[in-house]
């Protein structure tokens, strides 16, 4: 079904391979990169809420020390999956192994993780220091050691002097950093972040992304981040799990997800995209409307069936395109949106009844000076066209 180069690799399509494997509980060391063991293994996780199936047979291996991101639209099951890992939700079926221990049926208190919620969930009547020390107190850590640890953690999250304040006296971003400090205070093996940045405004969000990521890398703590923000996922994660309707669509690095989306959904959800219906012509060409483009179908076309062709707006070439440039066609400019560093040009290719988008650099714009109604010649290199069955 899938066209992407990694589709045949076990790692990219866990659903398919896991179905093939009969016994749950078999750790899939094979899937992990060489030398890295599967730290957290979710096998055949299924979750039903009444008759609604929130998760279909999800299997996934998380590597020691990586930041893995669950990405998807609301209702895709990403938060449910995180809450199952935390023991806050109980899966209908499936098993979970963490650090070689079967935690499938363990209550939250017997699992080993720290968690940060979108709402921060700081205790409002306790000082920042008391919040951070909350889990330490219960573990009978001696007072002196505890205070030293709190000091260290507050320094770590960049708020060394806030210990005596109360949560309400801090900004949203500061509160979220304290929530992270509290979660890692007891040195858990796993850090769960449930949309940690969604409640913050855009600038703070971008700054905190970098801070959390570098903190995670410094500590080497295995982390699961749930988000619906693709930019957040692309910029922070070692690997991204794109989810849709309770199933994994694709698992890969940011570059793989963006550059070689496994499905039209991933292509559309991560980044902006142009998607066109097409018919295969042999193994090397597709027919789109009245135009014909060269591409690599890789035998993915169902016999006689339609295809979909996809390319990114930034893949459109406009400079130096001549009549004889491969994969080029005449087009009319319909609309231009100036977006600062680049401009988004909406255009229509002759013989194709659909508006398309191109992101043109400042240089492109300076050279071509396109205006609405102008004709220009555009090209999309064959290696940039991706084809879905």
């Amino acid at each position, binding site marked *: 079904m899938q066209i992407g180069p990694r589709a045949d690799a076990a790692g990219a399509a866990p659903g398919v391979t896991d179905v093939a494997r009969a016994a749950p509980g078999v750790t899939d060391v094979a899937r992990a990169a060489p030398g890295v063991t599967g730290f957290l293994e979710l096998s055949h996780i299924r979750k039903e809420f009444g008759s609604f*199936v929130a998760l279909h*047979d999800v299997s996934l291996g998380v590597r020691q020390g990586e930041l893995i991101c669950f990405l998807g639209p609301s209702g895709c099951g990403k938060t449910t999956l995180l809450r199952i890992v935390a023991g806050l939700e109980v899966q209908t079926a499936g098993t979970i192994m963490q650090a070689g221990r079967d935690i499938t049926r363990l209550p939250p208190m017997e*699992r080993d993780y720290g968690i940060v919620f979108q*709402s921060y969930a700081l205790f409002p009547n*306790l000082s920042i220091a008391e919040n951070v020390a909350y889990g330490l107190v219960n573990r009978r850590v001696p007072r002196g050691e505890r205070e030293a640890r709190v000091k260290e953690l507050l320094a770590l999250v960049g708020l060394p002097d806030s210990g005596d304040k109360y949560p309400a006296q801090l900004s949203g971003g500061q509160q979220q950093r304290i929530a992270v400090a*509290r979660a890692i205070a007891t040195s858990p093996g796993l850090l769960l972040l449930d949309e940690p940045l969604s409640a913050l405004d855009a600038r703070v969000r971008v700054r905190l992304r970098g801070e959390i990521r570098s903190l995670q890398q410094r500590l080497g703590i295995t982390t699961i981040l749930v988000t619906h923000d693709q930019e957040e996922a692309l910029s922070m994660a070692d690997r991204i799990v794109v989810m849709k309707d309770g199933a994994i669509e694709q698992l890969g690095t940011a570059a793989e997800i963006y550059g070689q989306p496994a499905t039209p959904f991933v292509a559309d959800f991560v980044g902006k995209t142009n998607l066109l219906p097409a018919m295969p012509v042999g193994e090397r060409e597709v027919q789109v409307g009245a135009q014909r483009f060269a591409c690599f179908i890789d035998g993915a076309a169902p016999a006689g069936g339609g295809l979909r062709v996809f390319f990114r707006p930034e893949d459109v070439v406009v400079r130096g395109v001549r009549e004889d440039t491969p994969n080029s066609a005449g087009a009319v400019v319909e609309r231009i949106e100036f977006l600062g560093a680049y401009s988004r040009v909406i255009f229509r290719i002759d013989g194709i009844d659909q508006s398309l988008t191109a992101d043109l650099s400042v240089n492109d714009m300076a050279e071509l000076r396109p205006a609405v109604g102008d004709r220009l010649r555009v090209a999309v290199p064959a290696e940039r066209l991706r084809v879905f069955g």
Partner: protein
Amino acid sequence: MSAGEIGPRASAAIAAPGVTAAIAAHAVTRLKVHWTDRIGNVLLVAAGIVLAIFLLAPMVAILAKSIEDKAGVFVGLANFVDYFRTPALAKSIWNSIWVSTLVTAITIPLAFTFAYALTRSRMRFKALLRNLALVPILAPSLLAAISFIFWFGNQGLLKDLLMGGQIYGAPGIVISMVFATFPHALMILVTALSLTDARLYEAADALGTSAARKFWTITLPGAKYGLISAWMVVFTYALSDFGIPKVIGGNFNMLATDIFKLVIGQQDFPKGAVVAIILLVPVAVTYVVDSYVQKRQSALLTARSVPYVPRASPAFDWAMTAFCWTIAVLLLAVLGMAIYGSFVKLWPYNFDMVLDHYRVGLVDAGVIVSWYNSVKMAFWCATLGAAFIFFVAYLLEKTRGIDPFRPFVRLMAVLPMGVPGMVLGLGYIFFFVHAGNPLHFLYGSMAILVVCTTVHYYTSSHLTALTALKQIDNEFEAVSASLRVPFWRTLFRVTVPVCLPAMLDISRYMFVNAMTTVSAVVFLYSPSTTLASVAIVNLDEAGDIGAAAAMATLVVATSAGVCLLYYFLQVWLDRRTQAWRT
């Protein structure tokens, strides 16, 4: 779901039917229960059992009693048939319904206008007017009846205004009930009218909407649920109140007084049970409607709403001021007359102001003990009772596990609102009077009064607790569990401190209601546990209206004093928590 799904995964699932079938056949996964959670579950089950014993069992006892004869032999529906064949008794149903309807029809418009003035005008002294209007809550409902006897009774000051008419009977009952129900309706309506989003009015103004149209299209629909709710509360109150018809009703019979007469006067328990069940029907109907309405109201106000700030409108503001002060003065006149009457030496012959009724009528006659008992009972309700209610709400809202059992506890928590006090009290007699009942020892004790009163006022307190608990981040428990902190540590370190204002509210509510309640406890007191409100009934029945007024005044003074105490406690608390509440 999976069959209809389109996507690469779906085909994979379909391709391996054996595996999916194996998953489906596998038992649903369950987490092991951590021992700390187990404690929470055990506590919740215990709370459920307590509520079953002290709410459900008495109700069942009434049902059982209604189908037995006096000797305890099963007679089917004979008691009901008998009841409806007794014209005098059956007439009480009609009396109860029309009086309650009339009370509602008078109270709601008055309370709505008052609430409208408080929320939508720029009238001055709003806080003062609001507090004056809420004063009747501090008094037992009987106080109004006593006061109206002083005003309009056979020897009343303004008897001539009635032009030969009688205050005793329906007129006295209606007017006294309006006094007693007014603050209850007012509180609900003020809340309902405060819930309006100013942006709706701004949008309407931008479209050039007339004031009348704004009222009909924004104000009234916005307050719709509050109006229905207030209507229900007033109607139910009027239907089930016992004190007022007892004192000022004369020969006018209502369901609540019938129960009393049948049970206490004639010792006809089965017939009393029949009336109790009949009383349950309309209350149950209003209760069901109300809970439906409550469910729908929640979504009205979003976090983005902008509070409404009324604009100056001299004519309107003056009209509202005049209306509110008229109401306030009338309410004060009722309260004041009872207080005044308690000091008058010998009504209507000697109007010297003396303390005779307090000294002779209450202290020397030994009746003062019942005031002391009331304070004691109110204290226990306000502490143990309030704490119990809060912790049950906590267990329901914030702990995990035993999900199938939770709806039962939830039902037990909201059911008391649908049970009139008279009915609850009667159920307690039937259930606890049995010598064979292991809990029989409670019968006639102070404990049973505390329990009965706590159950009687359970629902409002429960809802207050629930609201406060819901405002606390739901993830606190999850965070605590991830830090391996047992739930009780978070309960005492975080939840209770954060909920203290709500707990104080519940406690105060319990105290004032326990101080003033008559209906539930009128069946349950023993010679050693007489209560102030019951003493008022008895003093009035004995013809000692001066002493009755004195006792009512004492109750009001106590309630007011305690409210003041709570107020200072709240101020102190606010100051202490200023650092973290902003």
